[in-house]
């Protein structure tokens, strides 16, 4: 029997997870809906002053995106953990970190990409204009994969633990701080006329760093959970 190559294994995992997600479309819709609601609550709480909304807009959207990602973290591994698929993944010959990358990528397509695509619309609600909107989309495009990568570590650590939903938030949120600072900072500095490039490249650095470390940490956490 031919062993599938790494690339094939990766593609297989992504395709399978996307298919599963497509069968449960309401899950996907829920995190998008959550993002829209959270983003709409802020103007109601802070007041409709356009100047205020413009200044808090980037931060609010970033925090909302971060929370939406957090809410969907439970879906990365839980179903596979419960029906035993995860155990098979640990046992097969393909390196576990590669499979983790596949699962996280699928998670990002389902929960991160919709956030990126929706963000210009929400940005308009907060009175962000032309360039700032572009930087917002770009920062989310670079930042949300990082959130998914880091979140996967937390999701793997709390597999099968009681109260895991709240626990994963407590574990992962401190790790999200740099991404939040750089992401929201990119938009604010571009609005201040300083350009968002510096922050965006730091976001890119975070993404590379998390792509490098997180699959290994996640794989270690999965092995610990399945022992």
């Amino acid at each position, binding site marked *: 029997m031919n062993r599938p190559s790494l690339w094939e294994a990766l593609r297989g995992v992504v395709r399978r997870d996307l298919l599963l997600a497509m069968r449960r479309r309401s899950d996907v819709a829920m995190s998008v809906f959550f993002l829209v609601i959270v983003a709409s609550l802020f103007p109601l709480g802070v007041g409709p002053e356009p100047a205020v909304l413009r200044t808090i807009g980037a931060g609010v959207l970033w925090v909302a995106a971060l929370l939406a990602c957090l809410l969907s973290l439970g879906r990365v591994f839980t179903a596979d953990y419960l029906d035993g698929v995860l155990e098979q993944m640990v046992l097969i010959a393909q390196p576990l970190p590669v499979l983790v990358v596949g699962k996280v990528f699928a998670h990002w397509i389902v929960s991160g990409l919709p956030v990126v695509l929706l963000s210009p619309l929400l940005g308009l609600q907060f009175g962000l204009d032309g360039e700032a909107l572009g930087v917002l989309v770009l920062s989310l495009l670079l930042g949300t994969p990082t959130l998914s990568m880091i979140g996967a*570590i937390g999701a793997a*650590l709390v597999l099968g633990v009681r109260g*895991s939903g709240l626990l994963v938030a*407590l*574990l992962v949120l401190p790790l999200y*701080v740099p991404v939040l*600072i750089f992401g929201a900072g990119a938009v*604010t500095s571009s609005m201040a006329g*300083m350009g968002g490039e510096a922050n965006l490249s730091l976001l890119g650095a975070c993404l590379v*760093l998390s792509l490098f470390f997180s699959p290994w940490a996640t794989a270690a956490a999965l092995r610990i959970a399945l022992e």
Partner: protein
Amino acid sequence: MNWSKYSAPLAFYPLAGKMIPWFSVVAALAIAVGLYIGLLVAPTDATQHDSYRIIFVHVPAAWMSMFLYVVMAIWAGIGMGLNARLSFMMAQAIAPTGAMFTFIALVTGCMWGKPTWGTYWVWDARLTSELILLFQYAGVMLLRTSIDDLRRADRASGVLALVGVVNIPIIYFSVQWWNTLHQGASVSMTAAPKMAAIMLTAMLLMTFGFWMYSIAVILARVRCVILERESQPAWSNPSAAPEVAEAR
């Protein structure tokens, strides 16, 4: 002398017991002398007046909080690399002391900030990273208590501690960067005046005292952890089965 035999928790237990009084005495002496010099002998500071004396507890607490986190992560890493149970117990014993020093550093930082900066809280790099550090300590301890299986709890919180080590410096630099963008902050946070030798002496003595105190407390706590774990019923902890204990 064969040191490796002390990697067995029950063999380490009496050794730790013998070390605790020494570290406690040294800690008490260093802290007493440090307090004497810092509060009674050292002159007042030209710019910060007497509020600067807060640094004699604040800076040592902040240093210990970060140092202990790294030490905790190292013990967890050794535990995972060598599959050593005592290392995980050390990591478990360090976390509460580290969290306490983090808390003290935060509160005394606020107490120092009010007279110096005019406000209890400023989102500067040091305070923010210290706050996140407190969250990370809380996360490590919460994860441990949420997992019933000891072996898994050790390893999972170890992974989290190691990930956190990468996070703290990134947060420090990101907040610093963030603050240089927001030039509005009116207080200069980098004003570190040259310290007189006597002040430095007091601060270093206090740091040394806190360090020795941490060792004493952590050894005492690791003894508790050993007792708690080894005396669990045999079905949950095969290494502490009664016949093993009696055979020694």
